[in-house]
C-alpha cells in the first residue's frame, strides 16, 4: 500500500508482475489507470528459468517487457518452499500442521507423528526442508511428546529454520533447548481440538521465507534488481483467492486447480460444512480457504507417479490396459521439455491431465460414510463438502491451453466403496486462457479490487464444457 501512496497523484502506473517457476519464468506488465480505476494488460512474456542463476531469466524477462514503475513477484523455483511437518496425533495436530504448511504455499516433504526417532532425524537431514514446523499438544495439553521431539530436533545443525506452533506451555523450553538456532515461536495451530488457528503460523512461515530463505533459493540477485522480496507463489494465490468473495460476491464457493509438471495444486474457497441435518461432522474443522498440493500428480516430472496413482482408472480407459500410456508417462518423466507430437500422444496427455485433475480434487474433498443407527440412517462427514461448489477455474500450463480434460471413460474414480466422495457435483468450468492468474495474484498486493476484477475478465467460461461433473453426487 505504501507504494500506492507514494505514487499519489500519478494518473497511470505500470506494474511488472513476475512468477518464477521451476521450469518457466512468466511475466506481465499491467497498466493501472486512475481515470478508469482499472487494470489492463500491457504485455506479457515468458523465458525458461535458468537453474544455475535465477537472476538471468528474471533479467531477460524484464528486457522483453515494457518498463514498469513497480515490480511484484513470486517464486516457486528450486523446489518451492519445502516444509517438514511435525505433530502429535496424525488426525489432529499433524493434519492441522500439514494444512497450515500447504496454505502458506509450502510443499510438505515429510510428516512425523508421535515421537521422533533417530531415523526421522536422519531423514530430515537428507530431505533438507527449508522450514521445520513443530506442532503438537493443544494449549494446556500434552507436553511429554513435544518435549521429546524438541530434544531430538536439537541434534540438527544450525542451518534449519524452526517454527514452533505447538502447546503454549512449552515455549520457554523450546527457546532454551533450541537456543543458537533460527527459531520462530508463534501461536498454537490447534489451541483447542475444535478450533484450529492456522493463520498466525501461516504468516510466520511467510515471514521466515522472506527473512531467511529467499537468499538460499538463488534469489539474492533478483531481490537486488527488483528492490523487493518475493512471496512463495502459492501463498500469493491463496491470499488472492481469499479476497474474491469481498469484491465479487457471486464467487463465494469455487475451486482453483493449478496443474503443473511436478504438482497439482487445488484451492477451495467455500464453507464446506454439512448441508443436511442427518450429517454429523467429524475431525478438526477445515478452513474456508484450503490448499492441497499433490506431489505425485503432474504432467512432466511427476507423470510416472501420476500414472501409478491412477493406474486402476487408466487401465479401464484403454483397450491395452493403459500400457502405452504408462510408457508415455515414463518417457515424460525423464524429458520434461517434451511436447506431444502425434494425435495419439495428445490423447495420452489429455488422459493424464484428466486423471490428475479428478484425483487431485477427489483427494482435496471430504468424504461421507453412511452408517445405520438405532435412530435411522446417518452420515458422518470428514473434510470439506465441495458438492455445492459453483465454479472451478483451471490454470497452469496444460489447463490454460487446452479444453477441459474430461474423463475418457466418463466414470468416476472409485475410492473406498463405503465412502461417498464430496467432490463438486455440477460446477461451471472457467479457464485461465492467458495464464495470468498467478501474475494477477502478485498485483493483488498493490491493487486488490482491480486485480480480482481483471481476473474475472481474463478467465473465460468454457464453451465446450460449460458445466463439469467431478464425481460428487448433486446435493
Amino acid at each position, binding site marked *: 500500500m505504501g507504494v500506492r501512496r507514494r505514487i499519489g497523484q500519478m494518473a497511470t502506473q505500470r506494474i511488472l508482475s513476475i512468477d518464477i517457476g521451476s521450469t518457466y519464468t512468466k511475466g506481465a506488465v499491467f497498466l493501472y489507470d486512475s481515470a478508469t480505476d482499472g487494470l489492463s494488460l500491457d504485455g506479457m512474456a515468458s523465458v525458461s528459468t535458468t537453474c544455475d542463476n535465477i537472476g538471468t531469466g528474471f533479467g531477460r524477462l524484464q528486457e522483453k517487457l515494457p518498463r514498469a514503475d513497480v515490480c511484484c513477484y513470486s517464486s516457486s523455483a528450486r523446489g518451492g518452499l519445502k516444509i517438514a511437518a511435525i505433530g502429535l496425533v496424525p488426525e*489432529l495436530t499433524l493434519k492441522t500442521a500439514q494444512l497450515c504448511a500447504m496454505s502458506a504455499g509450502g510443499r510438505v516433504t515429510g510428516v512425523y507423528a508421535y515421537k521422533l526417532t533417530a531415523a526421522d532425524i536422519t531423514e530430515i537431514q537428507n530431505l533438507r526442508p527449508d522450514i521445520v514446523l513443530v506442532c503438537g*499438544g493443544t494449549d494446556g495439553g500434552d507436553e511429554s511428546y513435544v518435549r521429546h521431539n524438541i530434544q531430538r530436533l536439537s541434534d540438527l545443525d544450525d542451518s534449519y529454520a524452526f517454527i514452533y506452533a505447538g502447546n503454549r506451555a512449552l515455549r520457554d523450553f523450546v527457546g532454551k533447548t533450541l537456543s543458537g538456532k533460527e527459531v520462530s515461536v508463534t501461536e498454537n495451530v490447534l489451541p483447542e481440538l475444535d478450533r484450529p488457528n492456522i493463520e498466525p503460523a501461516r504468516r510466520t512461515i511467510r515471514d521466515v521465507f522472506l527473512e531467511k530463505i529467499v537468499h538460499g533459493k538463488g534469489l539474492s540477485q533478483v531481490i537486488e534488481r527488483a528492490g523487493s522480496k518475493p512471496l512463495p507463489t502459492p501463498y500469493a494465490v491463496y491470499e488472492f483467492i481469499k479476497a474474491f468473495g469481498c469484491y465479487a460476491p457471486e464467487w463465494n464457493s469455487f475451486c482453483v486447480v493449478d496443474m503443473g509438471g511436478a504438482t497439482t495444486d487445488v484451492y477451495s474457497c467455500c464453507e464446506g460444512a454439512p448441508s443436511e441435518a442427518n450429517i454429523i461432522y467429524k475431525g478438526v474443522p477445515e478452513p474456508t480457504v484450503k490448499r492441497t498440493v499433490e506431489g505425485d500428480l503432474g504432467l512432466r516430472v511427476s507423470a510416472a507417479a501420476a500414472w501409478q496413482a491412477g493406474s486402476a482408472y487408466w487401465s479401464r480407459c484403454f483397450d491395452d490396459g493403459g500400457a502405452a500410456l504408462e510408457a508415455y508417462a515414463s518417457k515424460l518423466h525423464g524429458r520434461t521439455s517434451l511436447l506431444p507430437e502425434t494425435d495419439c500422444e495428445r490423447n495420452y496427455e489429455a488422459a493424464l491431465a484428466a486423471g490428475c485433475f479428478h484425483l487431485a480434487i477427489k483427494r482435496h474433498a471430504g468424504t461421507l460414510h453412511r452408517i445405520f443407527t438405532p*435412530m435411522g440412517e446417518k452420515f458422518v462427514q470428514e473434510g470439506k463438502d465441495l458438492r455445492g461448489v459453483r465454479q472451478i477455474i483451471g490454470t497452469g500450463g496444460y489447463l490454460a491451453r487446452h479444453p477441459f480434460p474430461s474423463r475418457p471413460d466418463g466414470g468416476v474414480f472409485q475410492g473406498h466403496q463405503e465412502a461417498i466422495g464430496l467432490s463438486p457435483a455440477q460446477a461451471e468450468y472457467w479457464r485461465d486462457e492467458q495464464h495470468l492468474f498467478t501474475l494477477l495474484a502478485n498485483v493483488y498486493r498493490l491493487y486488490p479490487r482491480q486485480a480480482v476484477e481483471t481476473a474475472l475478465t481474463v478467465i473465460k467460461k468454457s464453451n465446450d464444457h460449460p458445466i463439469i461433473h467431478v464425481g460428487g453426487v448433486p446435493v
Partner: protein
Amino acid sequence: MEQVSIVLGVIGSDCHAVGNKILEKVFSDAGFKVVNLGVMVSQDEFIHAAIETGAKALVVSSLYGQAELDCPGLRQRCQERGLPDIILYIGGRLVIGKHHFKEIEDKFLKMGFDRVFSPDCNLDEAIGLLKQDITQRWGSAAG
C-alpha cells in the same frame, strides 16, 4: 492452578446430544477443562483427543443400549496408546432390557472402567468422585 482436562463424548453410533450438552456444562462449571467430542465418538477419537490434550479422564456416555458393543477393548486400547493410567468413567442407559444396576456395573468395571453411573445418578456426586480419583491417581485435582 492449571485446569485438568477431561474428554467427554457419546460413544459409538449414539446421537443423543442433550445429555452430552448438560454434562459439558456441569463439568465445566465444576472447574474442569472439558474437551467435548459430541456424539458418535469412536474409541480412537476419545484416545486421540486425550493424547493431544493431555486429559486425565475419559467420560463416556451412552444412551442407546449398545455400550456393551461399543466399549470392550477401550481400556486395552488406552494402554496400547500410552495412556495406561487414564481414568475411565461411563454412564447412561448402557444395556438393553431390565437388569439390576449392580450387574451392569460389574460388567463395565470388568471391562476396565473405573466407575459406572446409572441414568439417574447424581452429577454432583460424580464430580466429587472424579476429583477424588484424579487426586489419588495423578496427585492434583481440578479447579
